[in-house]
């Protein structure tokens, strides 16, 4: 019994212990349940709060759960998406499948960028991270999937990339432009050098002599032709002031020319009996900066020789023509004077006309000879102190009849006794007045008028002859002082005329140190003017020669 009692007690103790353990277990279970609920609530709250879109999928890739952020990102409600395959909402479906499959081994996977297709069919670039969920035995029970919207990042990245690309492009463009500029600069440098070499070659091989002076009149260049002309070596003159080179005999005459005038135009310089050059000098100006002086030396020996030959030929021909013309003149004169017997009126008239024609021929030959003498430098003149008014009067009187015949009034008021006498070659000056007056009579229509006047300007006298004639065509006025020039309008009205009168007149006035010019308007008239310096001024003028 005792045993029984003892056993029962033992049993009772055991049962009591078991009851206690059961209660304990129950309590523990309850605790665990509460803990789980807390955990679940915690997880739910966390899931709700978490901005990261998260879902869980089972090993087959079917969405099991999503959080709020996932709903917001995809636009799907939990009920709409749970049970759907995860790859269904991605553009890269195959890639998703492969990645999910790989999770069995890899445990984690990360896709930097995949395109999520939202419920509204919008594509959002997302980064996708997958982590495997395993049970205690290590078997895969599912995956956590987290999605990060990278659209802003992508936009930023793309913006940056674009900017980098743009900047790179700009830099490349700048580099290219810089390279182009460098190439252009190099090209320009090469061209400039080529041009410089070319210019130097031209200067060196130029048939004209060139001397360049800087703004201080120092010789900066003398080309080989200039060296040859003046028998100098460039190295001996370069860097020296031209006016300090008077010790070089061949340069003396050139220096004299340059001293007198800054600008020289075609001045002849005889360097040797077989060498005549023409000197022209002009300022070299770049913008408003004076760089110096360029002296051009042109060999005109050949031209002078040809000119001399031509002049000689004309002179000789004219002389040869004078003999038969004189013979004709004398013969006709003797007929007219009855030295060869009586002639009737008709014969006399005809012979008289032949005589006049011959006289015109003689006048032409005389003009030609005068021209050749001017060109030969043999047109000598003897100045005497003369009353110019009387010279004009003489010529006017000798043309009175001719003017009267043409019904042209010639007006000349001789100046008083106080008018200064001037140094002139009377014979040559008569020729000038005669040429100008004859032209005026020839080219003024009947009823017209010719006025001649003289004015005293103290240092010079001014002669003026104006007519109411046909005038000189404007386009031909530049050639009026040229040899053989005749206006197209006057050729039509008067076929005769050598075109030498005005040329000769200009040369005579020039030789007297005067100036000649004209004003003319077609159909209205022409006025010729010339000045002659008074005695003192003329003597100064002569000293220059």
């Amino acid at each position, binding site marked *: 019994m005792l045993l029984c009692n003892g056993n029962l007690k033992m049993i009772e103790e055991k049962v009591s212990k078991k009851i206690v353990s059961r209660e304990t277990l129950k309590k523990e279970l309850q605790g665990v349940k509460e803990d789980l609920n807390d955990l679940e609530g915690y997880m739910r709250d966390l899931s709700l709060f978490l901005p990261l879109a998260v879902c869980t999928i089972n090993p087959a890739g079917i969405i099991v759960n999503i959080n709020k952020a996932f709903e917001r990102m995809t636009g799907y409600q939990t009920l709409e998406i749970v049970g759907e395959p995860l790859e269904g909402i991605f553009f890269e479906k195959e890639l998703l499948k492969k990645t999910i499959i790989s999770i069995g081994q890899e445990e984690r996977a990360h896709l930097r960028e995949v395109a999520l297709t939202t419920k509204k069919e919008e594509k959002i670039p997302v980064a996708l991270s997958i982590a495997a969920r395993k049970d205690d035995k290590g078997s895969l029970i599912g995956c956590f999937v987290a999605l990060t919207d990278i659209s802003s990042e992508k936009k930023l990245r793309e913006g940056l990339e674009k900017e980098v690309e743009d900047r790179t492009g700009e830099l490349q463009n700048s580099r290219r432009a810089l390279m182009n500029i460098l190439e252009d600069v190099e090209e320009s440098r090469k061209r400039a050098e080529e041009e410089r070499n070319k210019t130097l070659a031209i200067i060196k091989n130029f048939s004209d002599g060139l001397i360049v002076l800087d703004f201080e009149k120092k010789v900066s260049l003398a080309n080989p032709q200039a060296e040859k002309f003046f028998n100098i070596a460039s190295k001996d003159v370069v860097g020296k002031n031209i006016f300090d080179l008077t010790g070089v005999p061949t340069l003396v005459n050139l220096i004299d020319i340059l001293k007198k005038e800054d600008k020289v135009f075609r001045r002849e310089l005889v360097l040797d009996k077989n060498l005549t050059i023409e000197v022209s000098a002009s300022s070299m100006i770049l913008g408003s900066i004076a760089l110096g002086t360029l002296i051009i030396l042109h060999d005109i020996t050949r031209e002078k020789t040809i000119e001399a030959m031509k002049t000689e030929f004309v002179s000789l021909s004219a002389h040869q023509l004078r*003999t038969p*013309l004189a*013979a004709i*003149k004398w013969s006709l004169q003797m007929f007219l004077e009855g030295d060869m017997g009586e002639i009737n009126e008709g014969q006399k008239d005809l012979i008289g006309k032949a005589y006049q024609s011959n006289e015109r021929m003689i006048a032409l030959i005389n003009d030609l000879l005068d021209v050749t*003498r001017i060109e030969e430098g043999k047109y*000598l003149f003897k100045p005497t102190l003369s009353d110019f008014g009387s010279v004009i009067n003489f010529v006017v009187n000798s043309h009175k009849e001719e003017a009267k015949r043409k019904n042209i009034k010639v007006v000349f008021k001789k100046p008083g006794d106080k008018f200064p006498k001037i140094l002139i070659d009377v014979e040559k000056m008569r020729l000038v007045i005669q040429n100008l007056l004859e032209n005026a009579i020839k080219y003024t229509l009947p009823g017209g008028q010719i006025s001649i006047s003289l004015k005293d300007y103290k240092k010079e006298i001014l002669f003026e002859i104006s007519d109411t004639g046909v005038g000189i065509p404007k386009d031909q006025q530049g050639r009026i002082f040229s040899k053989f020039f005749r206006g197209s309008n006057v050729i039509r009205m008067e076929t005769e005329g050598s075109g030498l009168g005005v040329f000769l007149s200009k040369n005579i006035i020039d030789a007297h140190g005067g100036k000649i010019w004209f004003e003319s308007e077609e159909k209205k008239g022409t006025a010729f003017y010339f000045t002659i310096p008074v005695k003192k001024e003329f003597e100064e003028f002569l000293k220059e020669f």
Partner: protein
Amino acid sequence: MKKKNNSNNKILLIEDEEIMLDLLQRKLAQEGYDISVARNGEEGLDMMKEFIPDLVLLDIIMPKKGGYEVMEEMSRDESLNKIPIIIISNSGQPVEIDRAQKLGAKDWLVKTDFNPQEVIAKVRKQLPL
């Protein structure tokens, strides 16, 4: 035409141009002068060895001896250097006239600028009756 009486005056005409020679000879003969002609300077100087003319009418450019040479030789010869000379030439530049005057020429006529009557007037001036 009646011949004038100038026969006491002998004129030597030295001219190579036949027609001028002919015309002058006619004109001077009409005036009654005693004319001798030479066709170049050398011939003229030779003739002056035969007779002394009262006046020489002399061309400048001629074959053999020209007018200047004739004048130079005449100026060196005392029997000839007083004879008045009138130049009749195709030219008439001051420098030429000066030269001729220095060699004793009294006058210079440019053929184309004068006529025979004017030549006679110049001759008369040198050979007054």
